[in-house]
């Protein structure tokens, strides 16, 4: 599903040039659950952003579902992202002015789905996430765990094939964090490919494979069943 080759990303300001990714070869099969780990500043979020079509690489190639998406324009990336990729963030990133229902509904609006279909789907997802009793509440009226469940609901509302999670339990206590990880695992079992950035070994353990990044390069990949080290 995801295949990158010699993926490089360099951030340039007036004075400084930072190499965030350095010729990374990263593959994810359909239905996999992959965790990306590494110290702060190693390039995890950058890799996630490029995989999520939020950013373009400086060089290298990226095939998404067999299509080369390395140098797409913003509008093309948006078009491809819609309905195919869902996002879950550490800080939830819900829109404060929209209630729970409206937050979850948002990606479906951009998919030009009819109002009735949207309603049905959102209701089903909220029910599944056990948050439908809060559908008219606003984010500031929810706990952290509830907000993240809403964020996950929004991420899966459009039935994407891929979910990208950037430290999804980073702002949650252990109980809520476990709940979120169970949800992600459940989704993965249903066929959704998940790529997750995390600092937590506990969370990484839910994944089939752990990829370790350091200074913009993949240094190890560990499969859950068997180990494989790359240098």
């Amino acid at each position, binding site marked *: 599903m995801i295949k990158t080759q010699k993926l490089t990303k360099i951030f340039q300001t007036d004075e400084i040039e930072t190499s965030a990714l350095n010729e990374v070869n990263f593959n994810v099969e359909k239905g996999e659950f992959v965790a990306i780990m590494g110290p702060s500043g190693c390039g995890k979020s950058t890799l996630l952003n490029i995989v999520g079509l*939020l*950013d373009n690489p400086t060089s290298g190639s990226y095939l998404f579902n067999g299509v080369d998406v390395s140098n797409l324009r913003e*509008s093309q990336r*948006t078009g491809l*992202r*819609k309905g195919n990729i869902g996002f879950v963030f550490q800080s939830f*990133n819900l829109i*404060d002015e929209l209630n729970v229902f409206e937050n979850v509904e948002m*990606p479906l609006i*951009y998919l030009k789905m009819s109002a009735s279909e949207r309603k049905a789907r959102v209701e089903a997802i909220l029910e599944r996430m056990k948050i439908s009793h809060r559908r008219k509440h606003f984010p500031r009226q929810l706990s952290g765990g509830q907000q993240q469940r809403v964020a996950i609901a929004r991420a899966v509302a459009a039935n994407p094939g891929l979910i990208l999670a950037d430290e999804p339990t980073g702002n949650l206590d252990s109980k809520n964090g476990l709940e979120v990880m169970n949800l992600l695992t459940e989704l993965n079992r249903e066929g959704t490919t998940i790529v997750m950035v995390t600092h937590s070994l506990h969370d990484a353990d839910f994944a089939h494979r752990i990829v370790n990044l350091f200074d913009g390069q993949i240094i190890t990949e560990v499969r859950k069943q068997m180990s494989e080290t790359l240098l």
Partner: protein
Amino acid sequence: MGIKISLLIIWRKLRQNKVFSILNVLGLGIGLSVAVIVFLYASYELSFDRFNENADHIYLGVENSQNLNSVFPLPLAETIRNEVPEVEFAANVLPWEIKKEITTANGEFLQSCFYMDEGIFNIFSFRIIQQSQNTIFPTENSVAICESLAKKFFGSVDLAIGRDITVDKKNMAIISTIFKDIPNNSSLRFEMAAPLQTGVKEFKIVASWNDAYFHTFAKLKSPLNQVKPKISAFAKQHDIQIEFFPLTELHFAQSGSSQKTTLYIAIFAGIFIMLLACINFINLSTANIFKNSREAGLNKLFGSSSFNLHRQFILEALVLTFIAFGVALMVSFLLLPYINQLIGISLSIGQLTLFKSLLLLGIISGISFFTAIIPAHIFSKAQPLHILNKQISTNQSAVFLRKGLLLLQLSLTIIIIISTLFINKQVHFIDQTNFGFDKKNMVFIESENIQTMAAKYSVLEKELLKNPLITSVCATDARPGVIGSSTTGFRWQENSTEKSPSVYMYRVSNEFVNTFRVKLLEGKGFDKVQSNTKEVLINKTLAHLIAENGSALNKVLYQGERPFTIIGVLDDFSFNSIKEKQQPSMILFDSSRGFYPCIRISNEASTSLALTQINKNMKELFPDMKYEIKFTDDFILDEFISREIRFSKFFTLFSVLGIVVCCMGLFGLALFESNKRIKEIGIRKVNGAQVMEVIALLNKDIIGITIVAFVIATPIAWYAMHKWLENFAYKTELSWWIFAIAGLFALGIALLTVSWQSWKAATRNPVEALRDE
């Protein structure tokens, strides 16, 4: 925190938020400059004639308050002074501006001169600088001139007094009096005056109670209401219709009620724009305060008192306000020359007295205080952590206030746009209006010596008519479109003692109907070969008065014992003012008063050739006389419509300034909103929103508010324009499409202004947006 540190922080904030600061200061500065200009203009207009001592006791004689151009017979002034003891002074002015060729040691000058009683100088406070004797006009050949003329003729006042000048190359006159230049805000203005008797002789005016030529001014010892009965008795005794009209109300009344309306509209426009600027200021300042709430939160966290918090906000607002006031003075300084040219007066920043400046500063300081006090109060009441977590900026009442102010701002802007469009439409309409005679392809000759012109007119006419490009010629006693005199001396029943209303009189030679192309409704024009001086033409309005249900043709009018037969009835034509309703008018045949030859040219293409021939004829017949050939349509435009044109330009300028201020505010708010919604935009884009969808989302509010503003503004603007148009006898329609254009224009400007910010926000990389959060 000390004031010095507070000011340092304020200065750094202004530098860091350059865009906000510039928008804020410039917007308020432009609004204030409009306020300054309107302030100066209103002061000028409302102070008209008030420089005169006891101005409230000075009056102009009128037949009634509707006819302020009334003229009276020569004996009136002296008689009323003698017979009504409460009349302290009464004096006549011949209201004709006569051009005189003046020769002095310094050269030759063409100068306007008015003939008047010297009593005028007792009534008006025209300050005498120097006099050769103890009276204004010691002899019949004395003249009084203003200070600037004295300097022009002789270099200085001292050199001018008592000196001889040559008038029209043949008469000698002595400068007996020099007076200070009459201020612009005087209803009676002149640079040179000569004794009334000289004018009476020059124009062979008969000193009878039946011939009215003069404006009469009076100064009373007592209030008018006490004198009124005596004046009424006087009028009855002398069989004359006269009232006294207050001088201090003359300026507005003479210019038509539209002048007052113009002033009120200028004041309202000024207030509107000032309001727009203040709304901008409040909106942008409060938005900026909430944006930078961290500073307030930290101050509170570390122990700042409520007083300090209030002081900081108020100080910041005051600094912005004072900078804006400086900008306002600069902008006013730059705009005033153009505005002076537009409205034909002389305003300057120097007229802003200390009191007025302090008053203005007080008003705007009040505004800035109000701007600062609300957020100061909110922050002082809030918990520090709430402030730091930005739980204040999403406060619903703050959002509501901002939207409400924006709605008000857009409503005012739409009102201004609609008004500007209608004012321009009306001016265009007037310009195209048929005044009842054909002003195109007609020229007239204005000479320096109208008596000489009249004497030789018949010869000139013959020569002109030899030219095939000239279709007809006639001469008139006043410039085309301007009525020279009026009278109440006519009656239409022989033995009737009933007073006739005031009738405008126009004395012409025989080809008046053909040359002016007025529409003849009944009868005929004056005979080409031998016109009868006992025949008159009248207009439809007078015909209706004479014979309401029948024909006035062949009826006889009487002036004293003299009968005049009505040989023709003309359609109404507008002379004197396009704002006046039709007045009864009559055209008399009198070739001895052919002061202004009027020449009908066959077509526009022939104009240049025709003018060449006219000039040739003039040079041959009047080799030493200065003259000017004027186009009637240009003259009418200048005489009657230019004020409206100037007003429309004046209003358009204000309208543009108002729109600029509004756009600044919209831009600033759009900037604020897009900054505030960075995170939301990033999330939407991550979840599949395209650029156009984000732009539509950001612009949605402004579209909705503009539509509501249009609904609010339309009836208000309709009413205002309806009232303004009532001042015109000829008026354009209040077309619906003007409102539509204004609404679309406002929407277009609003969208254009905010879309730039929306587009920037929508095309921003969502990763950056979410990272910044």
